[in-house]
């Protein structure tokens, strides 16, 4: 319709391309097809989690519990596989545990008025504790089993985690842009009172986004376990920071009401490209942390400068 392309909206995309080209100049291996596919596979779990995070952040909330939920659902899933002998039931259990934990957080946020920061911080420690309790602190190995396809397999040469990421992206995009619920998510974050007075059940909307974030952690947790061939109760620490960083790099406002999925995907890839490129260049992992933080600040400054 009357949509003009506003290049100022694409600051983060230019940033990604710029970083990519710089890495390409510094390392001849970086721009090879094999490496690019590798990057996409490496970022897939963060991408899935960050998409749920984007929805939560658009409602004006935040989900700090994602890393712990990845561990909790992964452990619950693999343990269920061992207990039932069925990979399918185990996968379902992993997703159910992630969704259930997310729903609990969401109910506290939506119906008890607990600030999202607090509610999800509490879930962060509860879920981590739960994962440690159910595994007695030990990794649960499940090596030769068909479920590992979702982490290791590929279809026509495309690694399964990338396919799953694409599927989640497609479904989330449909939900956000093509259903009333998607509009309610934006409206709740944009002006909760106006949304409520328009007949939107904002408490349900809020509960739902935390449930979905939990479900996506469940998916991420199962993919990660499949990739490693084991569920680790200590996995996923710091995932929330990468997910939030990706959301912010993608231009989603932490105040709520604004945000785009593709922006988050660009943010996910900025982080992935930095990690991958630094590794190819043999940059010390300690220094990488510093560089990542600086890039985040620079990217947001650039974004603000462009929008002014």
């Amino acid at each position: 319709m009357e949509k003009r392309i506003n290049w100022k909206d694409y600051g983060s995309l230019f940033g990604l391309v710029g970083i990519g080209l710089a890495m390409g100049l510094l390392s001849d291996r970086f721009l090879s097809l094999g490496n690019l596919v590798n990057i996409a596979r490496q970022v897939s779990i963060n991408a899935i989690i960050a998409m749920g995070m984007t929805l939560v952040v658009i409602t004006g909330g935040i989900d700090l519990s994602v890393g712990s939920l990845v561990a909790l659902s992964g452990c619950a899933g693999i343990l269920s596989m061992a207990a039932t002998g069925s990979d399918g039931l185990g996968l379902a259990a992993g997703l159910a545990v992630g969704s259930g934990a997310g729903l609990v957080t969401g109910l506290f946020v939506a119906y008890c008025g607990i600030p999202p920061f607090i509610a999800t911080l509490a879930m962060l420690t509860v879920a981590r504790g739960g994962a440690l309790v159910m595994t007695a602190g030990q990794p649960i190995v499940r090596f030769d089993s068909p479920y590992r396809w979702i982490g290791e397999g590929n279809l026509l040469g495309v690694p399964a985690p990338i396919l799953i990421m694409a599927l989640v992206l497609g479904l989330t995009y449909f939900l956000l842009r093509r259903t009333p619920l998607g509009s309610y998510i934006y409206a709740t974050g944009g002006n909760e009172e106006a949304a409520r007075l328009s007949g939107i059940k904002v408490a349900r909307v809020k509960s739902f986004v935390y449930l979905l974030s939990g479900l996506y952690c469940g998916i991420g947790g199962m993919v990660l376990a499949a990739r490693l061939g084991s569920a680790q109760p200590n996995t996923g620490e710091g995932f929330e920071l990468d997910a939030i960083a990706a959301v912010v790099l993608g231009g989603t406002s932490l105040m709520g009401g604004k945000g785009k999925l593709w922006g988050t995907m660009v943010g996910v890839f900025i982080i992935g490209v930095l990690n991958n490129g630094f590794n190819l260049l043999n940059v010390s992992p300690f220094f990488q942390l510093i560089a990542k933080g600086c890039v985040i600040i620079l990217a947001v400054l650039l974004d603000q400068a462009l929008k002014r």
Partner: protein
Amino acid sequence: MSECPSGGPGPESRPAPALEMRGIVKAYPGVLALDGVDFDLLPGEVHGLVGENGAGKSTLLKILSGAIQADGGQVLVDGRPVSIAGPRGSQELGIAVIYQEFSLVPQLDVAQNIFLGLESRVGSGLVLDRGRMRREARGVLDQLRCDLDPRRVVAGLSVAEKQFVEIARALARRSRIVLMDEPSAPLSDKDVGALFDTIRTLKAGGVTIVYVSHRMEELFEITDRLSVLRDGRLVGTRATAGTGMAEVVRMMVGREISEHYPKERRPPGEAILELANVGGFEGIPLVVRRSEVVGLAGLVGAGRTELARRAFGADPRRFERVTWKGSPARPGSPAEAIGMGIGMVPEDRKEQGLVLGMSLRENVTLPILDRLFRGYGMDRAGQRRIAGEQVRRLGIQTPSIEQAVLRLSGGNQQKVVLAKWLARECELLILDEPTRGIDVGAKLEMYTIMNELTRQGKAVLMISSDLPELIAMSDRIYVMRDQRILAEYPGGSADQETIMTCIAREGA
């Protein structure tokens, strides 16, 4: 009507004003908040400032406090022109504002709060001299005849005590002009008495006080003069003694019915909404019939908005038992009320009516999105068609339906809020101050839509502080005061003075 610009003695016999405002203008996008206001304060007087919400009182206070700058006009202090560039500049001129929301630091004690930002005056400026600070605070509180202990932490104080601390703070800054915004609103009757004693003490010390309030009795008890604002203009200033409440109310809400109201009258249909025991009181039940516009008159705080919000299920856990189309109902949430067929254009379009960052299309269709969903996705074409229809029907001026409502003028924003409910085809539409802060043309279009609705057999419940508008556009009018419905009048022919007397409690 020509209002006499000021009451009391003529200019020759008056002392020089402590503060004067001349031709103050302040515009916000789409609204002229202050339109050439002349206003003066005499030294040592208590000056009441009244007007309905949106009349411009808070804009005026904000200009004096330096929170915002006027677009035009002049402020003079002691006859000298000054520019109030910011809060600091305002303080240096000896002006202090006491807002309804206190600006105290809860974790600090009374003395620290009184001297916040002035530490160097009661000590070295590097290390707090708490003993001296407390002694000086004691002195300030004594001036106010207040026996509050300066060592108490503010978080543990009552509302009235916090207000004392705010006033003491103004005094410690040697403020000569203290502006109080609805100071009595959070206080009990007993505390209001204490506040008045404090005001009299300040006045005796030569301090000028501006007292903003909606409560007529208080204004008549404490003020020396009263200024009335309406629609960004100063209607007039009167000496309180010798002025009647009804006259002030008339200045606030009344106006000669000179404008053209295109009211169409038609025979009412069956009752659609009935409310008994409004606000928990026995009294006149509220009835709204099809093809009828029912007006709710009253001052701010009379309970009109509360009544409307409860009928719409907007206040959680405060249900109103209503009779809807003859059967009992109890809307527990706006979603339920909307499901029944009720829509509401709320009082504050920006805070309650619109998601400002969203486009016109998205805002208009927000209440009907569930109907626009097809299995494969949203019916975008339908959404655009509905938004486009409403833009044409209401004459909304916008470059496109994709425009963020943030960028529309006030009148057009209000039309978008209305469009939401027209798109939903509600059977009863509640309009809370639908024409506040919008231009004459947009008002007229609002009235036309009301006619259109009643022609379709729909009902309208309208709250308005613009009495001529309410009288002209309503078929019947209920007057509210203190959360009760006190009287019912026919619209159109009703006499302004009668209704105003009822609103103002005079003769009750």
